[in-house]
């Protein structure tokens, strides 16, 4: 199809202003056509005629623009007549005429300062409400969990094993890689800094304390929050959008029992295992680096490690893992169930789930540190 650019020309016959338009008046050329229409200057002419006999193609955008030109003349006080409108374009004219000018009212402008204050207030109220709702959700999961304890048949084994595979087994490569690299980094930094004091042998002590006690568990929890917490929100949120959750409730199935409980239980089982794995791999990474940069043999390293590493530090680290797991899973599932509307909501709440669960993990870690300090562990 060849496109003939639209044009409009002014002429005068018998004291009337005649505007002849031709070519394609379609949305494809609407930008240029709008320029032509705006360039027309309504003058003193009382009688204006639009001659459309040379128009080859016309659509709603073209009709709207032609009528816009006519409106400008009418506003200047002219009478407008239409000539040469082809029969096939008549219904189009009627359609546009019926429907133009139905524009939504612009929302009133809001003062920027007032808007900022309003937003602050709204966010504060929402944060308060969310705290209450999350607490209620934790209570709900506890009740569901206790009820399931009374009737163990209610634990969904298939779903539990599936979640364990997804959150645990499939996470091992990335968690292992991360732990190995962190071990290397810690050992290298420790060796470089402690060498200034001639105390590089204490690099091993540092590894033996920080990795099992803090770094191994914390970094694994953060990795799992990013990997599985987000997946929980996205899965449950998408089911919410598809009305699957509503369907479950209508069929008398409890989403808490079917979706939430297996995910929480799976994470409570897998996160400690992943943390243990990451401590082990982290120590291997640290050992590799220490042996290379400290010029010591593996036997010497292991000997020192045996002295430095105690069960206490290891237990302190592992105790935290199930708590972190619970926080991540609860937040992930809670945000998933909060999804409403469409895809955009899923994305927003998934982000929120990851940010909130990592934040809560770090807060919990700080609380643990205070507790252990008070207990002199």
């Amino acid at each position, binding site marked *: *199809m060849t496109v003939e650019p639209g044009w409009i020309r002014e002429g005068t016959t018998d004291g009337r202003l005649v505007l002849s338009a031709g070519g394609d008046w*379609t*949305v*494809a050329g*609407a*930008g240029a056509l*709008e320029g032509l229409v705006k360039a027309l200057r309504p003058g003193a002419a009382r009688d204006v005629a639009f001659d459309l006999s040379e128009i080859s193609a016309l*659509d*709603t*955008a073209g009709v*709207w623009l032609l009528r*816009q030109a006519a409106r400008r003349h009418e506003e200047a006080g002219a009478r407008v007549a239409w000539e040469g409108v082809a029969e*096939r374009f008549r*219904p*189009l004219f*009627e*359609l*546009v005429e*019926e*429907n*133009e000018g*139905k*524009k*939504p*009212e612009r*929302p009133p402008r809001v003062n920027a300062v007032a808007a900022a204050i309003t937003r602050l207030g709204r966010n504060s109220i929402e944060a308060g409400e969310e705290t209450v709702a999350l607490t209620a959700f934790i209570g709900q999961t506890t009740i569901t969990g206790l009820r399931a304890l009374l009737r163990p048949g209610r634990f969904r084994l298939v779903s539990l094993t599936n979640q364990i595979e997804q959150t645990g087994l499939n996470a091992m490569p990335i968690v292992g890689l991360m732990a190995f690299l962190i071990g290397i980094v810690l050992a290298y930094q420790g060796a470089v800094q402690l060498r200034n004091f001639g105390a590089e042998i204490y690099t091993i002590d540092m590894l033996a304390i920080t990795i099992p006690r803090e770094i191994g568990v914390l970094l694994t929890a953060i990795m799992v929050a990013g990997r599985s917490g987000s997946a929980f929100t996205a899965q449950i949120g998408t089911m919410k959008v598809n009305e699957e959750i509503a369907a479950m409730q209508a069929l008398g199935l409890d989403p808490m029992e079917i979706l939430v409980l297996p995910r929480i239980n799976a994470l409570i089982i897998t996160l400690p295992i992943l943390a243990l794995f990451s401590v082990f791999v982290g120590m291997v990474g640290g050992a590799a680096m220490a042996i290379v940069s400290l010029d010591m043999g593996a036997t010497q390293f292991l000997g020192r490690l045996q002295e430095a590493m105690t069960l206490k530090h290891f237990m302190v680290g592992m105790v935290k893992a199930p708590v972190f797991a619970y926080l991540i899973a609860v937040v992930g599932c809670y945000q998933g169930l909060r999804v*409403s*509307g*469409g*895809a*955009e*909501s899923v994305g927003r709440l998934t982000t929120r789930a990851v940010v909130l669960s990592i934040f809560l993990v770090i807060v919990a870690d700080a609380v643990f540190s205070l507790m252990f300090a008070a207990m002199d562990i």
Partner: protein
Amino acid sequence: MAAEAVIRISGLVNQFGKQVIHDGVDLEVMRGEVLGLVGGSGSGKSVLMRTILGLNRPRAGKIELLGVDISRMDADARAATQTRCGVLFQDGALFSSLSVTENVQAPMREHLRLDQALMDELAALKIAMVGLPPDAGPKLPGELSGGMRKRAGLARALALDPEILFLDEPTAGLDPIGAAAFDSLIRDLQHSLGLTVVMVTHDLDTLIAICDRIAVLVDKKVRVGTMAEHLGDPHPWIQEYFHGPRARAAFASADGGKG
């Protein structure tokens, strides 16, 4: 008007794994007609539509859309053809993070360079044309009812004044009054804008009310004809479809409406 085929399909084969959906489909859609596409569940109505739109690569066969072979199109030609086709998906498929007005403007923004003010005017015009109230424009799709979402989807499909309009089950999920209103809306717009309409539908009332010809997907092929021709077709599925109790009720109400 000379009958010009805007869509020409020959020897189309679609296959997913071992399951053959279409086996030698031939179909021509003429400019300015309303073609209904019917068939049992799983007979490949939606697949056929998606194939014509280039969303699904056929195993074999040739499809000409507005005179161009779609398998040989480069990206520019494809974009140019797409601006001449409007699609209404089931349930609208509106972009959920954009308001209705922004949804209607999305194709304009992508394919044309227009002033924001002009786009606002054109979007308002399209929204009014599909029968939505002006205050629907700033709303998000999530705030609309199902029927309004369909109308908003239609407004987006009409954003660039297409020549061909594809509708996937336009009246599914609407109440009978809403469905009838939607039928007449499509008929009016088709008449005013000179559209060619291809619609997948299960709604016999729609078929009777607005379709010029009907393409029936049976036995992995297409049989095209007017309603009268299909009524005389001896194929058992077509017989059952057009002579079943629901069809009789639809014909009765259509006659009643006319008489």
